[in-house]
């Protein structure tokens, strides 16, 4: 069997910004940028897994960075170092980077809690020899920016640090461009980015049931040639080409 759910140890779980937490796990599985893991909670009133993207994978340590937005992530933030949780092996297809060649340039566009998956991607692209820049937008308080091994352009909605405005305005203002683009963030941002940069790869979110392709809970609409088909975010995604995504729902 290629996939499994494993009980793993929490090596660290700490708050890195307001309502943003970082969790490190002992995790002896390969993971690709843009993939995610299903995190199962210990308290049994909540049954469904929480999908959280791979933020960083170094050796046997998997780092997840998650926003505390509801009861599940709140519970996650209460787990202490040394505790164990059930986590799936990596799921989803991740970003399409196999074809990319050394020397090309890439821009990573992230908003808020959409930024974590771009960190592993950044490392992977830099290792491949690409010239990478990241455009990262926050409401107020930045996080993770020092971890990016590349030039970072910063924007905040409230203008507390960096550019005052959103990431797309920042890209337009600075006239940034590159050979390829990758984006992760909330739907409105991804939609706007996809309209401006149709060649962008976007990592999208949808409310999930199983998280591994069995329940059809997480579908999104994707244009293929001329037809619109329903794809599973958990299995066919979570990364799609910006131009193919039908954003209407």
């Amino acid at each position, binding site marked *: *069997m*290629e*996939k*499994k*759910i494993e009980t793993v140890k929490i090596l660290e779980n700490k708050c890195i910004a307001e309502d943003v937490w970082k969790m490190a796990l002992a995790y002896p599985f390969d993971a690709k940028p843009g993939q995610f893991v299903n995190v*199962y909670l210990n308290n*049994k*009133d*909540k*049954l*469904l*897994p929480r999908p959280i993207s791979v933020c960083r994978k170094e050796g046997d340590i998997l780092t997840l960075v998650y926003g505390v937005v509801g009861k*599940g992530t709140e519970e996650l933030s209460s787990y202490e170092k040394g505790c164990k949780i059930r986590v*799936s092996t990596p799921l989803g297809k991740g970003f399409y980077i196999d074809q990319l060649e050394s020397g090309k340039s890439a821009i990573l566009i992230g908003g808020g809690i959409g930024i974590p998956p771009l960190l592993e991607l950044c490392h992977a692209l830099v290792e491949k020899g690409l010239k990478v820049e990241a455009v990262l937008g926050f409401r107020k308080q930045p996080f993770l920016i020092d971890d990016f091994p590349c030039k970072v352009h910063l924007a905040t909605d409230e203008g507390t640090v960096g550019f005052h405005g959103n990431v797309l305005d920042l890209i337009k203002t600075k006239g940034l461009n590159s050979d390829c683009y990758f984006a992760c963030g909330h739907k409105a941002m991804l939609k706007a980015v996809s309209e401006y940069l149709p060649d962008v790869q976007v990592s999208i979110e*949808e*409310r*999930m*049931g*199983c*998280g*591994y*392709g*069995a*329940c*059809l*809970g*997480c*579908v*999104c609409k994707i244009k293929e040639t001329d037809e619109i088909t*329903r794809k599973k975010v958990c*299995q066919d995604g979570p990364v799609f080409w910006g131009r193919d995504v039908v954003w209407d*729902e």
Partner: protein
Amino acid sequence: MDLYFGEGMLFGMNSLDMSVNIAGVKWKNPITTASGTFSARESGEFYDLSELGALTTKGVSYEEWEGNATPRIAETYGGMLNSIGLQNKGVEHFIKEELPVLKRYGVPIIVNVVGKTVEEYCRVVERLSETDIDMIELNISCPNIKEGGISFGTDPKMAFSLVERVRKSTRKALIVKLSPNVTDITQIARSVEAAGADCLSLINTLLGMRIDVHKRKPVLANRVGGLSGPAIKPVALRMVYEVRRSVDLPIIGIGGIMTGEDAVEFLMAGANAVAVGTASLVDPTAPFRIKNELKQFMLEYNYRSIKEIELLEE
């Protein structure tokens, strides 16, 4: 128990018989998957599907159905709501693309059938009857489909005429899956038995709802959805118990089964086999694990066959 210890050893592993005969089809154990919570390719990445008693597919319609808008899933206390809306690519696609994958595992295949009209149900069933699937499960109860108004499964007369017509369309073993959203499930069970069903499966999901108080709107795009998971187990168990006392057909018990002991509860309530649904979303290997836990339970209490698992006479 102590008295039987020697005998338990004597009968031991070898003579433990988990097989059941459901409407003429032999399952090597009484565990199948609940429709819509299992997909051969994906679930097969987590465990060996050939270990189960039977494999039940998601709902198959005649032509492709798009299903409902998203969000389609909402979590509830000890359960979940879904409003998938029976998205599927239609029976031809099923036969061409999915059936061959299912066949690989050498266990009986149960195809869950959905339709918006009697005719549509019949057409799917006729087409499936030309294939080598083993059983047909008629989903007369899906609460998510708005078209056609009231669901077939909530009206004894409508249920009767649907099953009567479908019965004429196939010689395959015909399971009818009942809706719990009714005043008296035994009435529907008896109608469906009279109409020629070979087996009953119950329950489908309870109609439920959740509201996001922050966004001030229903969590599901479809507003309401089907409630499943351990939260509904007591209702499912009561219905199996009631139906067992009013019809003679074999029963596949469904609803919130998470462990081997849950499966035993259903068998004791009168089910002949069980299907595992939401548990597969909480633990992708659930049907396989539950099969093992059931075996463990049988060994511990010295049950030698599934038939022996029943309530004590009072």
